[in-house]
């Protein structure tokens, strides 16, 4: 399992490819990979959003993400999980988060990927501040799952 928080531009597909190449134990074993990528939109709640600032709690974030991936591995029949989350300043179209899950069959991969995303949104200490043309605002609620 790998959990990573990065201030640098996130290339979700490169992350997934690199993790898969590094994971010798997956070779020939997995039949299913479910992957989710969250990307910054240029609008939210009807307003144009020019940029986003993503704050987090270094140390606690990684700890919570690790708990989430361990819980998913306990609950679902999966082979591995990867979570990479961007922090810092983002522009529209920038990927924010990637969650990828490997398993033998597709059901576990889909279920676990979705579950990790829901837990991440509920329990990982990240906060979004949106910059609009007329100022900035903290995003104060999550989108429904």
């Amino acid at each position: 399992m790998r959990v990573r928080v990065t201030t640098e531009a996130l290339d979700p597909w490169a992350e997934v490819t690199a993790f898969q190449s590094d994971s010798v134990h997956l070779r020939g074993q997995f039949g299913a990979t479910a992957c989710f990528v969250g990307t910054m939109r240029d609008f939210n709640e009807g307003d144009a959003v020019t940029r986003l600032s993503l704050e987090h709690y270094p140390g606690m974030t990684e700890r919570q993400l690790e708990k989430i991936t361990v819980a998913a591995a306990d609950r679902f029949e999966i082979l591995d999980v990867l979570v990479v989350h961007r922090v810092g300043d983002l522009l529209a179209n920038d990927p924010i988060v990637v969650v990828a899950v490997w398993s033998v069959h597709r059901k576990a991969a889909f279920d676990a990927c979705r579950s990790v995303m829901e837990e991440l949104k509920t329990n990982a200490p990240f906060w979004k501040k949106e910059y609009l043309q007329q100022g900035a605002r903290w995003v104060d609620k999550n989108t429904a799952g």
Partner: protein
Amino acid sequence: MSIRVRFFASLKEQVGYSETMVSSDQVATVGDVLQQVDRASVLTGRLLYAVNMEYAKLDTPVAEGDEVAFFPPVTGGEP
């Protein structure tokens, strides 16, 4: 007792700083720490608490050297 207190996101802006120390023998719980750092009640909205990077409640006990954090509901993941 000496406690490191941290604020994140909108709470950091409300108090005007990201961290402080509380040194008092009067603090036994997260709630006590909150009272100490927010005497003027500037913190608004729903608050979450963490002790040593684990989620906590107002009645969670705190000990010498602990790190206590206050922050608003989290909003990670996709937009």
